[in-house]
């Protein structure tokens, strides 16, 4: 993402040392925080997440170098709070594929597809349980 025009300060205006603060004085996300940036425009392959096969082991959440796994809090059967993976933040995912590597389900719940792939189509054609080979 190109730097917005209003961010193009002159040489004598910004903080020295290419130093960026994550929060402003009031503790809010600063304009320099990556939360406000789309930093994934060089991605070539993207992971697609299949909720149907996911067991919420959170391996992907732990392994993702850019904290791209979106979660919501749910209550499990015993009434305890638990994180549920609900999707991927494509504004920050660089497509490294680590999540696919660490996904432990027999049929992967995360697979890499070319960037232009339609998500619905990918989910409809998700691999089925493989027949056992000799």
């Amino acid at each position: 993402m190109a730097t917005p025009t209003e961010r193009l300060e002159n040489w004598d205006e910004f903080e020295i040392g290419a130093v960026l603060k994550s929060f402003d004085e009031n503790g809010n996300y600063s304009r320099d925080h990556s939360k406000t940036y789309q930093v994934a425009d060089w991605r070539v392959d993207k992971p697609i997440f299949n909720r149907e096969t996911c067991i919420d082991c959170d391996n992907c959440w732990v392994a993702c170098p850019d904290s791209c796994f979106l979660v919501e809090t749910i209550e499990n059967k015993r009434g305890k709070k638990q994180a549920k993976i609900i999707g991927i933040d494509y504004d920050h995912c660089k497509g490294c594929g680590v999540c696919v590597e660490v996904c432990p389900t027999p049929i992967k719940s995360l697979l890499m597809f070319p960037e232009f792939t339609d998500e619905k189509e990918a989910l409809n054609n998700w691999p089925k349980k493989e027949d056992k080979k000799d």
Partner: protein
Amino acid sequence: MAEKYELKTKEVWDGNTAASHALRQAQVDVVAAYPITPSTPIVQNYAQYLADGYVDGEFVMVESEHSAMSACVGASAAGGRVATATSSQGYALMVEVLYQASGMRLPIVMTVVNRALASPLNIHGDHGDLYLGRDAGWIHLIANNPQEAYDMTLCAFKIAEDEDVRLPVSTNQDGFLVSHTAQIVEPLDDDTAYKFIGDYKPKNPMLDFNSPTTYGAQTEEEWHFEHKARQHKALMDSPKVIEKVFAEFKELTGREYKLVESYNMEDAEVAVVAMGSNYETAKIAADKAREMGIKAGVVCPRSFRPFPLEEVAEVLKNVKAIGTMDRSAPMGTIGALHNEIAGALNGFGYNSIITGYIYGLGGRDTTVEDNLEVFKDLAMNAEAGKRVTPLQKFIKLRGPELSFFKVGE
């Protein structure tokens, strides 16, 4: 609380001991270093002071000089006073990180003992490593004897950490000729030295958890130029702070330092410009030249970066012939110091005759007589009113005379 070190008003120290005591008195928070000849004793002594309770900080023993400077960058960005030491190949390995340190505007102090660069391998002094760091965005101060190695190191902290500077500073002394030559040094007592430097004032420390900070963000074509220009401006403005610190140091010790040191320049018709131990040798040669009727003077830039262009031009403007002394292999051009001097004089409108001399590579001894030969050359040029000696000569090189751009060839 660190123990006080008992010092006499006069100590017999070599340059390494002097630099290590200055680091100790600065009460550095983190020293990360990988010892290398001839600067090893700086690091070794410092570790000893720490083990003996004279320092409260941390000493990080790392696996290479690249790691040493990287650890310094991390510790400095975290918000501590940081220093290291190196030479030669170690300096070369650090170079990538030297640019990181200056770009992040981290006031790290590095006590460099200058040594030749391989290949062929050589442990003795020349300025190959100093020139390697020339464009790295650091302030490079020159110390010509152990006393100056001590004084410059104390001043280096105060200059680097000044809020108008916030740049890393290296202090440079010639390998063995200064680093291992014991002379009388008059140190300050621990409290006075620390008070002169002052407490460290962190700026944007990463250890401030209430304000998470990114250092050295990526900047492409729409930002990089502005950042580098601002850094250059800080270097170009830093002489004001260097002079202010030198003035305070003189107030405290009586020892006076200037951006450009000079000797017998008031009425000089010929002058040698040199950095390092040869400045002192050339001073003796200048006295001898005057006995022979040559009005000789000597000039030494105290800071190689920022280069005191205007001050150098001012002190040299009435000189007829100048000899620049570069202690590094020029490898395909004139010497770096020659370049600076020629640029300074031309830029301010002066037309002295300037010739360059390459000397002392790999620790080759350069004597009073060698410097006297240079003054004789300069006198010939001054007398003729034009350059009659080669543009570049090699001093004390074995074999047929090697020189470039002889007149009339």
